[in-house]
């Protein structure tokens, strides 16, 4: 008999899996019912997360899962992304004649996996969570069965994903071999005195980080991201670009601040290289993209670079900046991708003259773009500021400067979209449909982006509390 405390620690995952199975099995015809049911599941998940938040420090399953403010914060970020995705997907799926129930079931299942990744502190638990999420994502990416690009994206993502899983697993097994334990705390204790330059440890680090960089789409392991984001159904792109990244970063942070903290000198150069490469490749590749989805994909690679810079700084401000960045990033990137979900095609030309046709849609997009570029008074400014601040505090002036200069580069491609919006169209384009759920998701995301820019205090307090 499993003690009730143990079950309580994985309550969100339980709720999500039950709702996911129900959605997959019930096969409701009505799309609205499915969405309502999934949202009910999300509401219960939120309730579970909220209940959990008052039991910080509780560990379950012999210390495999832990309830801490950090995990709850990042789970909340994933939750937000999932809710936005659920709100928007119905219309896009109806357009492609695909099943809403299956889709939503997979979304919830992926989220269930991610809650385990975020709150897991044991290798096997985390790995099971990662794979649950990844398998769901493979299917979700190829969900438009009739569309070749969707299938292609799924296959690419699956093949590269399998490779990364292999790398990650190899790293995990080496870590286990070195320490004889799968629990992060025990691994940390046993790696304490070990020489960071130990070749076996180094091998473990390299493979682990390569696998994780793949998951967070950091260069040079980012190749799958533009293809997968572009080919996948747009709501899936939004979910994949945000929630999946948040969960993987949670694991990366837990590993780097826990078991691998002692060998910081060994992995720091790798993280620096990945961060700078992500910034460079992401920003420069985004410059010339014609597809807005690809542009956002490369921009998301660049954002990964900024978040990694917080890890390079490695102090309190840096970690705060990272998780704050993850939350804000989820809101603005999900918002931007989901706004795209209503567009028939994803090339830049679709935005031409949007300001005159549907000014509110254009304004919402503008808020996301300005925020992605990191200009105040939108939410995107503050996490970037925290990251730069942490870099300056730890005397990494050069990285701060590079990061700051790339803001100007990113401005160029974000404003290419803004520019299209104010150009007069040569041939009049049709209005994009704006179903209720889409309006709710995009509206809430843009209002949050703006409100957290003007008053970032609540988010900052929360992030600060999450690291206590």
């Amino acid at each position, binding site marked *: 008999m499993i003690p009730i405390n143990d079950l309580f620690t994985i309550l969100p995952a339980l709720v999500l899996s039950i709702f996911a199975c129900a959605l997959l099995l019930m096969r409701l015809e009505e799309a609205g019912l499915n969405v309502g049911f999934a949202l009910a599941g999300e509401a219960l998940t939120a309730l579970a997360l909220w209940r959990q938040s008052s039991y910080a420090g509780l560990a379950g399953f012999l210390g495999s899962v832990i309830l801490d403010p950090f995990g709850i914060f990042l789970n909340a970020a994933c939750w937000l992304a999932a809710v936005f995705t659920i709100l928007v997907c119905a219309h896009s799926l109806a357009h492609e004649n695909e099943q809403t129930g299956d889709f939503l079931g997979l979304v919830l299942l992926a989220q269930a996996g991610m809650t385990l990744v975020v709150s897991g502190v044991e290798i096997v638990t985390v790995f099971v969570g990662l794979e649950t999420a990844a398998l769901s994502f493979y299917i979700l990416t190829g969900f438009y069965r009739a569309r070749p690009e969707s299938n292609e994206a799924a296959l690419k993502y699956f093949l590269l994903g399998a490779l990364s899983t292999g790398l990650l697993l190899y790293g995990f097994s080496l870590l286990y071999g070195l320490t004889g334990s799968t629990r992060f705390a025990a691994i940390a204790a046993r790696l304490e005195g070990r020489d960071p330059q130990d070749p076996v440890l180094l091998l473990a680090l390299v493979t682990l980080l390569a696998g994780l960089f793949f998951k967070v789409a950091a260069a040079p392991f980012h190749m799958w991201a533009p293809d997968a984001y572009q080919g996948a159904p747009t709501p899936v792109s939004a979910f994949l670009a945000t929630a999946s990244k948040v969960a993987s970063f949670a694991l990366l942070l837990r590993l780097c601040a826990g078991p691998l903290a002692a060998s910081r000198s060994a992995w720091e150069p790798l993280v620096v290289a990945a961060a700078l490469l992500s910034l460079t490749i992401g920003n420069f590749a985004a410059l010339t993209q014609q597809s807005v989805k690809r542009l956002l994909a490369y921009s998301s690679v660049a954002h990964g670079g900024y978040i990694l810079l917080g890890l390079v700084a490695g102090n309190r401000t840096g970690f705060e900046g990272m998780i704050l960045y993850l939350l804000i990033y989820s809101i603005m990137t999900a918002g931007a991708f989901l706004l795209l979900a209503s567009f028939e095609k994803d090339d830049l030309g679709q935005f031409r003259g949007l300001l005159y046709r549907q000014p509110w849609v254009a304004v919402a997009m503008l808020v996301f773009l300005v925020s992605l570029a990191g200009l105040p008074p939108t939410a995107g400014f503050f996490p970037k500021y925290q990251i730069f601040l942490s870099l300056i505090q730890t005397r990494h002036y050069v990285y701060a400067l590079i990061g700051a200069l790339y*803001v*100007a580069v990113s401005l160029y491609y974000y*404003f290419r979209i803004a520019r299209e919006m104010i150009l007069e169209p040569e041939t009049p384009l049709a209005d994009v449909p704006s179903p209720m759920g889409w309006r709710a998701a995009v509206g809430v995301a843009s209002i949050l982006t703006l409100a957290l820019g003007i008053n970032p205090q609540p988010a900052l307090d929360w992030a600060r509390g999450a690291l206590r």
Partner: protein
Amino acid sequence: MVTLLLLPLVGVLLQIVVPRRNSTLAWYAALATSFCTLLLPLSWAASTLPGDINLPWIPAVGASFALQMDGAALLFSILTGLVFFLAILASPGKPATFYALHLVMLAAAYGFFLAGDALLLFLCFEAVLIPMYFLIGVWGSQNRQQAAFRFVLYTVLGSVALLLGILTLYLAHGSATGNFTFALAPLTQTALPWRGFAFTAIVLGFAVKVPMLPLHSWLPLAHTEAPTSGSVILAAILLKMGTYGLFRMAVPLLGGEAWSASATNVLLWLSAAAILYGGFAALGQTDAKRLVAYSSISHLGFCTLGLFSQNSAALSGSLLQQINHGISTSLLFFLVGFLYERRGTRDLAQFGGLAKPMPRLSLVFGIAMLGSAGLPLLNGFVGEFTILRGVFAVHPAVASFSLLGIILAAAYLLVLFQKTMLGPVTLEANRTLPDLRLREWLIVLPLLGWSIWIGISPGGHFRLLDASVAAVVKPMLAGGRP
């Protein structure tokens, strides 16, 4: 003072509520809002200044919503309110979005001029960027896309430097005193390490906006392509954000330290170069707006000259000259805009002899031109004279160089006047142009009145400015020296 920031935002909401297609109603609403915001600083000028406001904003990092009012802030708020009101008055029949963008900028401009917190100041500095991008990009002339884009790119590059400077001060202050705060007064008035670096970064950030010499190339394009109200606001308010920012954040950092002498030396010579470069470039222009744009570079050279001279007379003069430039240049841009509305061109060759069909407009144009050129009894003279007198005391070589700028100003402005207003009417189309209308009189009269007021009796203005300058100069001379 919070009302001052909230009123324009209420106005933005009004613009959203106004039914679409009803642009007259939107125009009235925008006029009413901007007029109400203008009344507030005017009433303070008539009675007493309101006390400072300090509300918690982001306590976690030590940023507060702090607004402070002094003589300089009061004059700049009045200028802001007046210019925005007139700019909206000059653009009837535009969609509600157009007015909403103006009101957002208005709120941000007030916030910038009153800010007592570096982060708030930075936020407001950035907040005008996006509305201006759309103002130029949507309602500008042929090359508007390029102009708007270049404007944003330059300013953001500057902002990055500015943020770096602010962060340096913040961290230096925090680690020296243990008090991490963004409040302007402690950041700028405590003797801190890294001051030279922060000074450079902050000057770079604001210099793009002023613009100072090597960073000016966005300005002629943006000014030329913007709609009339955009050019006016750009010249009268946004450029002032650069100089005013320098006054609030960079000038107090100067002091007895070794770097400050060499830094000011470089900046003074750059200012003198800007005065001459702007003057010569203006001489060669054939587009009326471009000419006024280059004249702005020259006039702002005087402002920065006064700012970096570390002399309280020149500093007061510089602040007054900033107000003067706001008055004269917006007047000139309005008048060029009126001509453009009538003829659809800004090419100087298309005009000539306009004094015959429109004697009143040419009279106003003449006064504006003379005010800008620095004729005694008009506003420009007072500012430039005070600056040069102050600079002569500390740096005679730079001052004598800059004197040439006054001659150049007279030359290019007279050329502008002569080519448009004087001589025979060469083109048939110009013969029947209507003279100033009532609305246009309403726009030019307040500016003309203010310009003559400053020219005849600048004493009241100087009294207001001197207190602000003293607050900057005293710590600059006392605190900086080890």
